[in-house]
C-alpha cells in the first residue's frame, strides 16, 4: 500500500491514504477528532474542504460539537487546521512515509486489522512499521507495570516466549518493565510468531529512550503499530487510547503485574467493555507491584499461572471466533497440561544455604532481614547468597534478595 509509484509526478494519482495521513498529522489532531472529521468520507475531499471551504467544515464541526470544548475553542482549532492544511503537502507526506518504510491503513481498507475494524472506537488511520499481518491469528496482550519486580519481568518474559512458541502473537505496549520483558521473551530468534507492539507516540519516536535496541529488533522481526502519525510525541493522553487499541486487538489480555490503580487497569477496563477475556498473574500479597493483579483475581478474574492457563483461555475465546486456532496452539495447549511441580532443590545445598534459601521470598528481602531470619553471621549469609545466586536460586533485586525459580537457570 505504501508503494504506489512516484508520488511527486502524479499529483492527481495521489491515493486517499496520503490525504488521510496528512490530516492525521495536522496540529492538535486527536484520534477522536479525526474520526469525526472523516466518518468514512474520502480524505481528499475533507482535506480540500478544510483548505478552501473552511466555513463548511466549521459548520460540520459545530453541529457535531466536539465534547469538552466550547464553540470558541472549536473555531480556533478549525482555524489552526485550515492554516496547517494550506501549508501541508500530502505528496511530501506520502513520499516521506514510503521512504521511511511506514505503512498506512484507513479503516475499511484492505490490510486493516480485521478484529480492530469491528471495534466501535476503531482508529480512522493506522501507521505501522514492520509486519502486522500476523494480527489476524490468535493474539494475547501481555500488559503490566513499568516498575516491574524481577518476578514480574521474568514471568512476562517466560509467558512471552512460551506463547510465541505456541504460535500466539504477543501484543504489548513497548513500555519499560512488563511490556519490555514480554517483548524480549517473544523475540527469541526461533519463535514462529513475531510479536506486535502498539505504541502511544509515532512509530518512529522511540520511547522510553532506554528501549531503543528493543524497538529496532521489534521493527525488524515483528511490527510496531500506532494511530499517532510519525513524529508524534508520546504525550500523556495518548496512552489510555493506546491501551484501548491493545484491548481491541487481543483475544485475551494478561495482566502480569500491576500496582493498585496502575495504568494496566485502563487496558483491563477497555477489555471488559469489549468482552475480551482478562487474566491476571497472581503475585505475593506483600508485593505492591502485585496489588492490582491480586485484587483482579479477588474480583473474579481468571488466573494465569503459566502459558497453559493462557492458552486454555485463548481456546475458549477463539471458539466463537471465525478464525480458528492453528494446530500448533492446540497441540501446545494439550502438551503443557500436566503442570510442572516445584523444581527439585539441588541436593548439593549445604545446611547454611538451606536456611538462607528458606529466609528468602518472592519479593525482595533485605540482606539484614535474611541474616536475622537465618540466624547466621553477615559474611556467612553473604557467601551463601552468592552460592545460591550462582545456582540460579536467588537473585539480587532492588535493595535485597529475591528467591528465584531454579528452572530458568
Amino acid at each position, binding site marked *: 500500500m505504501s508503494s504506489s509509484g512516484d508520488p511527486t509526478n502524479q499529483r492527481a494519482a495521489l491515493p486517499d491514504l496520503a490525504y488521510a495521513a496528512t490530516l492525521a498529522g495536522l496540529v492538535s489532531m486527536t484520534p477522536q477528532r479525526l474520526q469525526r472529521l472523516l466518518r468514512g468520507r474520502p480524505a481528499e475531499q475533507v482535506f480540500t474542504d478544510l483548505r478552501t471551504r473552511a466555513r463548511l467544515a466549521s459548520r460540520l464541526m459545530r453541529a457535531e460539537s466536539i465534547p469538552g470544548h466550547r464553540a470558541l475553542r472549536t473555531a480556533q482549532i478549525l482555524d489552526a487546521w485550515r492554516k496547517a492544511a494550506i501549508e501541508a503537502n500530502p505528496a511530501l507526506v506520502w513520499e516521506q512515509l514510503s521512504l521511511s518504510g511506514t505503512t498506512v491503513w484507513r479503516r475499511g481498507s484492505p490490510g486493516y486489522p480485521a478484529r480492530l475494524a469491528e471495534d466501535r472506537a476503531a482508529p480512522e488511520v493506522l501507521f505501522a512499521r514492520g509486519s502486522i499481518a500476523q494480527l489476524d491469528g490468535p493474539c494475547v496482550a501481555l500488559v503490566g507495570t*513499568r516498575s516491574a519486580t*524481577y518476578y514480574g519481568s*521474568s514471568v512476562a518474559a517466560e509467558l512471552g516466549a512460551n506463547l510465541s512458541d505456541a504460535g500466539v502473537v504477543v501484543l504489548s505496549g513497548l513500555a519499560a518493565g512488563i511490556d519490555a520483558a514480554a517483548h524480549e521473551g517473544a523475540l527469541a530468534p526461533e519463535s514462529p510468531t513475531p510479536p506486535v507492539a502498539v505504541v502511544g507516540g509515532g512509530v518512529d519516536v522511540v520511547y522510553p529512550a532506554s528501549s531503543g535496541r528493543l524497538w529496532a529488533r521489534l521493527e525488524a522481526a515483528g511490527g510496531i503499530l500506532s494511530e499517532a502519525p510519525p513524529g508524534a510525541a508520546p504525550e500523556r493522553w495518548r496512552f489510555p487510547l493506546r491501551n484501548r487499541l491493545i484491548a481491541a486487538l487481543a483475544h485475551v489480555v494478561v495482566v502480569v503485574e500491576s500496582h493498585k490503580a496502575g495504568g494496566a487497569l485502563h487496558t483491563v477496563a477497555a477489555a471488559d467493555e469489549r468482552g475480551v477475556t482478562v487474566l491476571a498473574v497472581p503475585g505475593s500479597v506483600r508485593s505492591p507491584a502485585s496489588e492490582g493483579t491480586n485484587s483482579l483475581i479477588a474480583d473474579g478474574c481468571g488466573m494465569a499461572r503459566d502459558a497453559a492457563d493462557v492458552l486454555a483461555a485463548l481456546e475458549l475465546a477463539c471458539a466463537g471466533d471465525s478464525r480458528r486456532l492453528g494446530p500448533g496452539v492446540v497441540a501446545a495447549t494439550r502438551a503443557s497440561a500436566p503442570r510442572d511441580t516445584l523444581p527439585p532443590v539441588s541436593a548439593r545445598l549445604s545446611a547454611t544455604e538451606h536456611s538462607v534459601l528458606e529466609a528468602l521470598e518472592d519479593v525482595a528481602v533485605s540482606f539484614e532481614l535474611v541474616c536475622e531470619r537465618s540466624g547466621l553471621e*553477615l*559474611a556467612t549469609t553473604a557467601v551463601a547468597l*552468592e552460592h545460591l545466586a*550462582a545456582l540460579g536460586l536467588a537473585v539480587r*533485586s*532492588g535493595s535485597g534478595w529475591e528467591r528465584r525459580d531454579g528452572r530458568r537457570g
Partner: protein
Amino acid sequence: MIASIPSATLLGVRGRPVLVEVHVSNGLPGFTVVGLPDAACREARDRVRAALLSSGLPWPLRRVTVNLAPSGVRKTGAGLDLPIAVGLLVATGELDSAAVCGCAFVGELGLDGTIRAVPGVLPLVDALSSPAVVLPPACIPEALLVGGQIVRTARSLRELVDALSGRIAWPDLALATPVHHQRVPAPSGTTAAGGYHAREPLDLADVRGQPVGRLAVEVAAAGGHHLLLSGRPGSGKTMLAERLPSVLPPLDEAQLLETCRIHSAAALPLPPAGERRPPFRAPHHGISAPALIGGGSSWMRPGEVSLATNGVLFLDELGEFPAALLDLLRQPLEEGVIRVARARATVSFPARFLLVGAMNPCPCGERQGVGSCVCSAAQLARYLRRLSGPLLDRFDLHVAVGRPAVRDLLDATPGESSSVVAQRVERVRRLARRRGVTANAELPTASLDQHAPLTKGARLLLERQLCSGALSARGLDRVRRVALTLADLEVSQTTVDEGHVAMALELRAGRTALLGGSREP
C-alpha cells in the same frame, strides 16, 4: 627617610612574605599605597592615620609612599596595617630602625590604635623568616603552634611603640589572654560552622540494629573508603554518618597542624587544645561552588573540601546537590588537592577527605526496590542523573540502609561503642601504613595481588561476578580493597577469603538498588 618592614599576606592556605617599604619625602602631603593592594589593604591609609593620631603619635605632613613588595602578588586583608604604621614611624624617625630590626609585624589597626586579630596567622607566621614576630594578642595561641620564632604582642599601637623603644617591658603573652569568641568575625555564612566540633562526641552505641550500616561505617573508617548511604527517610543514614568521626583514628601532629592551618586561613575557630578528633564538615546542599571547593572574589578562602581534610566531608541529601557541584569533587577525590584558578592567581588547597554521602532513593523517598513510591519514572531518572557515573564510581561502599526493626529500636542493650570499634580501625590503619599507604583505599592496583591475595573460593566468586557483568574491571579493584579491609578487621586473617569478598559485594549492593541494575530478567 625609608623603612622596610617584613610582613606576610595570605594566598589560599599559604602565607607569602611581603616587604612593606615606606618612603617619606618632601612634596605635597599625600599617602599612596602601591603594589597590588586589595580594597581592605588600600583602606589601610585611613586606619593608620587615625590610629597614629589617637595614639598621640605624629602624622607626617609630607609625601608618603608605601610599596608592598613583591609588587606582582595580590595583597589581601587588613593584616598589613600594623607594618605600614611601624614603617611610617621608622621613616619619620619616631622609632629607631635598630629597634624594629629582625622583627616582623602582622595586625589590623583600630581607629583608636588597638591591634586587632587577622585570619590565617598560622600560615602567615609559617611564611615569615624573621627571628621575631609581633602579633595581635588574640592570635598568640595560633602562632605558638608553629614555634621556632620569638612571638611578641601588644594591645595597642602606643604600647607597641613604648615596648619597641624600651620604655616598658613587652606585655606577657599569657596576659594577652585570647578567647575564641574575641576572634575576628568570620566572613558571612560561616557562623553555622560554630566551633570546631559543634556537638558533644556522638557514639556508635546509640545506633540500634543496623548491622550492615554499622559495618559500613567501620569499614569506611578503617580503609578510608568513601561511603554512600541510601535509604528512606528515617532509616538512620545521617545518624550513622555523624558517628563516623568517632571511630576514625585521632589526628597526629602533622595532620593537626595542617587542619589548624586550613581553619586559620578560613578564619574559623581552631580545634581547642587537646582536641584530636578529625574535622567533620556537613555543608548544606544550597552551597555555592566557591564555598565548596574554595576561592572567592578577592580572598582565596579554603572551601569545605579543604576544611574537611584529614576528616569527613558529609553531603547529606546528595541527590539535592546540583550535578555540576558534585562533579567538582572529582579532582579532589582523585588527587587529594583542589586547584582553584582565578584570573589573578591559581591556588592549590589540600583536599584529602573521607566522603560520606546520604540520599533518599528517589525524590519522594519511599522507593526501596519496590515500595509505595509515588515518583514517576521521569522524576526518578532526573533525580538519579544528578549523580554522574564517575562520581558514583568513587564510592567503594554503597549501602542501602533499611529502617531498623521495631524490636531493635525498643531493645535497651546498646550496640558496640565507638571506642571498641576505633581500636580495630586503628589496627587496620597500622597494617595499611606497613603497606606504604595511609589507608587500604589508596592501595595501587598493581600491589593488590601482593597485599590482598585471594583464596580459591574468593577468586571463583569474583570470576562469576565478572562473567555475569555484575562487576566491572574498576569495580573489581574496589571490591578487592574493601575485602582486604574486611580481612584486616579480623585479627587472624592474612588472606582475603570468600566471606570477605561476598561481604564486600554486599557492601556495594546499594548501587544496584539505587540504579535498578538487576531489574532485567
